[in-house]
């Protein structure tokens, strides 16, 4: 009995860990803050979250929402975060076991960042992050979903920092 319990516990603990395809970006500490940016996100659910993660990254001196002023950097984000959940019959099966049966609860995120200044596009970044996760009653996978968005935001912050460090300020493309 003990063995079975132990086995199922370790299976739940080990097998249900969420994985992300985008590695956690390393942001260098001790750099100067980048000038303020104004960020607009085309997502009802994750817009505020994404802006908060950009603030949390510590790369920008200020992250505002809305439209940028003259000479200020504007970032437009098309964020498409799709939940992938198990099909309905499996969901019912899991409900019948009081959600002890782990279920697929993935998040597929694709994000396009467009960096602009004074109406001109300076650069575009594209990120994809797929979070795979089996969720059950005591582990719904909410931190993993947040981590998914967080990594996308941090990847963008890192790339902006790198672009700035290369000491060639972003030039207009056209």
């Amino acid at each position, binding site marked *: 009995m003990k063995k079975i319990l132990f086995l199922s516990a370790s299976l739940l603990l080990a097998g249900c860990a969420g994985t992300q395809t985008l590695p956690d970006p390393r942001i260098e500490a001790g750099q100067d803050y980048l000038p303020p940016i104004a960020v*607009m996100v*085309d997502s*009802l659910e994750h817009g505020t979250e994404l802006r908060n993660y950009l603030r949390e990254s510590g790369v920008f001196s200020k992250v*505002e929402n809305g439209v940028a002023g003259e000479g200020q950097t504007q970032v437009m984000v098309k964020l498409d975060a799709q939940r992938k959940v198990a099909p309905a019959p499996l969901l019912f099966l899991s409900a019948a076991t009081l959600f002890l049966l782990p279920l697929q609860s993935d998040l597929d995120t694709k994000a396009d960042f467009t960096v602009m200044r004074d109406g001109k596009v300076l650069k575009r970044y594209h990120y994809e992050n797929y979070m795979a996760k089996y969720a059950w009653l005591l582990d719904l996978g909410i931190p993993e979903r947040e981590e998914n968005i967080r990594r996308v935001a941090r990847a963008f912050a890192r790339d902006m920092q790198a672009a700035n460090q290369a000491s060639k300020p972003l030039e207009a493309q056209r």
Partner: protein
Amino acid sequence: MNNLVKAALMAAGLALLGGCNPSMKPLGYHAQKPYVPMSLLVLPDGYTRFDVQERDELTSAVRSSGAFSFVDHGLPRKGYALVISQPPGEGAGFLVALNALTLLTFPVPYSYVHNLTGKVYKDGELLRTFSYKREGMSVGAWYVPPPITENQRQMLTELMRDLEASALIPHVDDAGQVGLVDQR
């Protein structure tokens, strides 16, 4: 009870649960030219599951009119914003709730007042308020769809038409803003 009756009851139950959910039809307005990137805020922003569902439904109804080139959510300090809210009106009251005793079969009449307000902001300052109201009578019974969905649709349609006519929010220029609209 034999199996046939059971199956019929089950099918009828599923049809009632699934088929009678009145979802909003598309607005009777389609934009010729989208507005510049702006913010949209539908209130209440969501405390309960029903709030969130209603917010999402209204948001997608407004967005599907094609009036927006790029929508951010929230109230920004800079740029244009449209805030849509529904001030409290009147709805089905205590009598209709009592009607649950008849399993909502007896048609209990009630009067309703539905409100909808659209506020246009620029740089955090209120430019104009558009208010709409629908009053009428309906009955609370399971076979009569609640009038709120259709009323919301009509009021949103009027709001989007009036917004277009007011010319408060500039449209996307053919020159400078193309990069925003089409990303790839």
